[in-house]
């Protein structure tokens, strides 16, 4: 029985609450997949809308890795890390017809021998609060 790849994402703030200008640090890893089958991995810090209107999204930070690098073949399953400073806007929002959600999304492409490539995605939402007066 074959399982889908397992993607795990960990953020530096345990409560997943951030303010504009905070440094978001993220560790991510892929399991339950063979090294040679994992072809590429993309990670993005982004926001998207949901609700009653057309969905739209915007990427704040993006990174892509493939198995082939100038140093030779690498194992994309290994624990990886990135960090980015969060912008001032837009803030997370829950409304009636409109929601704005921030998340870290990892997307991988897996291709087993003699099979077509398959895509898997996993997102970890977090909140971007407004500045609070201290």
């Amino acid at each position, binding site marked *: 029985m074959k399982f889908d790849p397992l993607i795990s994402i960990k953020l530096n703030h345990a409560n997943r609450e951030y303010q504009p200008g905070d440094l978001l640090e993220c560790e991510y890893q892929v399991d339950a997949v063979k090294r040679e089958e994992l072809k590429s991995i993309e990670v993005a810090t982004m926001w998207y809308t949901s609700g009653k209107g057309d969905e739209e999204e915007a990427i704040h930070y993006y990174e892509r890795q493939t198995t082939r690098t100038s140093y030779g073949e690498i194992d994309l399953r290994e624990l990886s890390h990135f960090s980015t400073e969060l912008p001032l*806007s837009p803030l997370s929002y829950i409304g009636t017809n409109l929601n704005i959600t921030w998340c870290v999304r990892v997307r991988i492409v897996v291709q087993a021998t003699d099979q077509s490539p398959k895509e898997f995605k996993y997102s970890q939402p977090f909140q971007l609060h407004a500045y609070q007066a201290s």
Partner: protein
Amino acid sequence: MARPLIRLIGKKRGSHHSVSHRVGMWGDIAFSVTLLVLGVLASIALISQALRAGPEISIDIWLMALVVLTFIVFGAQGLIRSLLRSRMGDGLKFSFQQNVTKFDFSQRMRGRLKLPHVPLFDTILTSRGSVQKWRLPMTTGQPVKTLAVIIFFSIWICISLVLVYYSISQYLSQKNELHFSWWLPILSLPPSIGLSIWAGKFLKTQLRGRITIDPLKLEISEQPLHPGHTYDVTAIQGGLLHVRSLRIFLVCEEVTSYHQGTDVRTESHEVIRERVFQDRRFEIKPNTPLKETFPIKIPAKAMHSFQGHYNSLQWKLVSIGRYRDMPEIQRSYALIVHPPSPHSLSEGDR
């Protein structure tokens, strides 16, 4: 004290005119209307003459047509120019205003990168206020509807005039009164005139309240706004009005649009509606215009303005005025709320 003497003939001394401005304006309008009506009537006569002349139209008819066309053009442009310069002009210009928030030239400013998807406050395009720092742009004007009504009325007036002229000329030239070229235009006259009268009444209803009263102006002490802060807003309105009630609301609405196939569905939902000003039964006179200042507070944890391709969160002030002998008038004034920053938090209320 100068005597209020109305001079019919005046002298221009540099930029100063010795004649009454009002007399000059009405004189301009009368002249332009005369030119326009003469042009229209002459064009009707010329067209019927050309039709009778057959396929070969002589050059003098073409020359006359050119002259008649210049009458119409100069008459029309003179009339429009005079109206725009009059007190009605403010209302007319307001009616033709585009939605100012659409022209967000500030997208090209460097500051856009600092606040992605938040409308920026453009100090170049925004007018300064006379009492407060900034004048708020109006976002409602319905230019297409106003223009459509004017064109509709103009077309039916012209059609009626043509039918009247044609009926009379056919009656005078026809020996057989029962010929269809006589009674057909006659029969068309009542519905055409009826439609022209109806169009005129409809135009009067549509424009009443738009061009006959000065638009309400709102000025604000600061822009952009920040949550948790209080700002002063001044409402200014001139003219001669009996006001039954004037209410102003602070509104935040979510605007979402959904596209599927050929369907486009746009929905607005108000999430905040707070009355910030109300007054009843007062009079506005030319020498005592309305000038009221009141505070507005953006709630501390409110969401900032947001502008996406298909979704937006918009803040605005909405005025609803009820006047004697006028339909209710509602106008919107765009506000821009930015997310709080350490700087705005430390500044506190303005």
